[in-house]
């Protein structure tokens, strides 16, 4: 088990390192003269020189990379070009907000997804199953900005129940922010929900067809007991992994959703950096997201191995 964890950890670290090279290459080497790109064509040569100096662009590329990565690891993420402020506190605040949003989304899609998936599997091939299956397929592909604006149009504009914009004070607490979190959280949850439904359904259908479930049924155990002690313990395994991995999909969804609702989260900060071509900000946020994503995947792997002792990865 320990070897497995160490190997997976090594793999994730390698992936993050390679990703950091890609990020660095794509943002700092690929654009050619980065100073011209950021300041525009009409900037004076002196301004460009200053910026190059500031970003350390006149050093060799490898030195630049090593310095950048070293600083990032040590917590020095540099200064944002567009806000002229330190990046780390800004990113941390946004990360906290995104985590709140993702947390509410998790609280929605995990229970609802598992319930719907179970329902579809237990009523397999009935109209309930058909509705859930086709519905989840539809929601898997529905872009967040479409579901988001439809939710706003129903719950904010028609019914007036919830705020249509979630531009909360960046540092407001969870309780104060909660009403503003509901609609965006539902929006983010919808696509992932569909995924959890499909996974739960297919694995439950599998387990229901196994010999041990048939035996349990035939020896007269009450259906409830079969479901809880025999079916669920096995069929929820893959779902748990899916949920752990979904942290990665949430990030893509967050970028769009936060922009629909003007929510001050990490996704919107990335977009802000992209729109302003704020290279240090892009580098820091994207690398942070890749690290988070890597950790989530690692946890998913470990969780799966712990929960499923039949499978040993070496």
């Amino acid at each position, binding site marked *: 088990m320990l070897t497995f964890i160490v190997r997976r950890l090594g793999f994730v670290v*390698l*992936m*993050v390192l*390679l*990703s950091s090279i*890609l*990020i660095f290459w*794509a*943002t700092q080497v*690929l*654009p050619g003269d980065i100073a011209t790109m950021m300041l525009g064509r009409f900037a004076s040569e002196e301004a460009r020189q200053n910026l190059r100096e500031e970003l350390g662009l006149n050093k060799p590329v490898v030195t630049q990379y090593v310095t950048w990565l070293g600083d990032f690891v040590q917590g020095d993420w540099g200064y944002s070009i567009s806000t002229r402020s330190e990046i780390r506190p800004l990113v941390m605040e946004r990360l906290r907000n995104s985590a709140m949003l993702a947390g509410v989304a998790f609280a929605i899609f995990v229970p609802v997804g598992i319930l719907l998936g179970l329902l579809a599997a237990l009523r*397999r091939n009935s109209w309930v199953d058909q509705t859930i*299956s*086709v519905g989840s*397929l*539809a929601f*898997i*592909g*529905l*872009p*967040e*900005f*479409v579901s988001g*604006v*439809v939710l*706003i*149009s129903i719950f904010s*504009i028609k019914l007036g129940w919830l705020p249509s914009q979630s531009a909360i004070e960046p540092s407001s607490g969870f309780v104060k922010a909660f009403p503003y979190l509901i609609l965006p959280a539902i929006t983010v949850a919808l696509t992932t929900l569909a*995924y959890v439904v*499909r*996974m739960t359904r*297919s*694995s439950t*259908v*599998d387990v229901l067809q196994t010999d041990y479930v048939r035996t349990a049924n035939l020896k007269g155990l009450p259906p409830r007991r079969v479901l809880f002690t025999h079916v669920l313990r096995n069929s929820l395994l893959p779902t748990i*992994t899916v949920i752990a*991995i979904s942290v*990665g*999909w949430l*990030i*893509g969804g967050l*970028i*769009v959703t936060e922009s*629909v609702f003007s929510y001050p989260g990490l996704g919107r900060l*990335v*977009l802000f*950096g*992209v*729109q302003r*071509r704020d290279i240090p900000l*892009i580098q820091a946020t*994207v690398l942070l*997201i890749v690290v988070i*994503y*890597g950790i989530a995947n690692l946890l*998913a*792997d470990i969780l*799966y191995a712990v929960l499923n002792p039949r*499978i040993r*990865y070496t």
Partner: protein
Amino acid sequence: MTRGGLRGGGHVPDLGRPIYYADGPDDRLLTTSGGDVSGSIQDGGVPEEQKPDADETPARRPGNRALYWRRLKRRPAAMFGTVIFLFFLFLAIFGPLIAPYDFDAQSAALRLKPPAIEHPFGTDQFGRDILSRIMVGARGIFLLGGIGTLLAVLIGTPIGLASGYAGGLLDEVIMRLLDVLLSFPSLLLALVLLAVVGPSNANLVLVVTLLYTPMIARVVRSMVLDLKTKEFVEAARVRGERRSYILFREVLPNSLPPLLVETSMRFSYSIFLVASLGFLGLGVQPPSPDWGLQINEARNFFALAPWTLLFPAGTIALLVIATSLMSDGLRQVMLPGVARK
């Protein structure tokens, strides 16, 4: 020469790990590649067809098309998806010709007019006909997503073939490099690349290609690993056939069904991606109208003129749902017994 169809299904062997990266990250439309989690049959109906070992014609017999068609007809959701998809394809080709108005014609007098006979979907804040903008916009989204996906297939297929067939160190290196691309949520990678190279239609195509090449290569590679050990490939090798013959005449044709299914899923996801990028202001470039951007701009007028938002949103939803129903149907029809994860 024997062609041993897809017996045992197009099951894609896993790489000895859990679902980690088995599908692309951020991959809402899932591929056929399997994790260790054993698959199940997704669809409801016709159990005898779901056993991959039932009396099935091997791949690439002419009879297959009729078989696929027969199965497709039994799935109303997939049929519905296909019909809607074809309708949008028609729009993408002929939209600009049959659109009732010039999509860019502005008129101060016609600003934000509700739907009526002359303007069935109403007009937007510049007095432009929304129906015409939607009809013309279909082309951009199809072209960008379609060309990008196609290029990804053209580049990813040889990579997957070579990597899977060669095995060893080369395979390992190629796969790790592709893993790097897959370790970014795809929308994030697209944003970063577009920030650097600047949003243009050509760059958008390249970004779609770059994002999907690793996923296509992965599916092809898995098929190669599976087929490489089959008797008919062995036989060809013993006969002394050249490597290119084995790859392109034996392995590739038998990899087509999963490849086709993967391609259709990628295409359906590319619509999602291009529309999302459009919403964020990095999509199809003006003057051609972009559905996502249309929705973004319409948000400001929603309370006043809900039609400016609801018609484009409904259109995107319809197309995305239709393509995902279609590609799921395609998977069920061509690869019965392989679970959608």
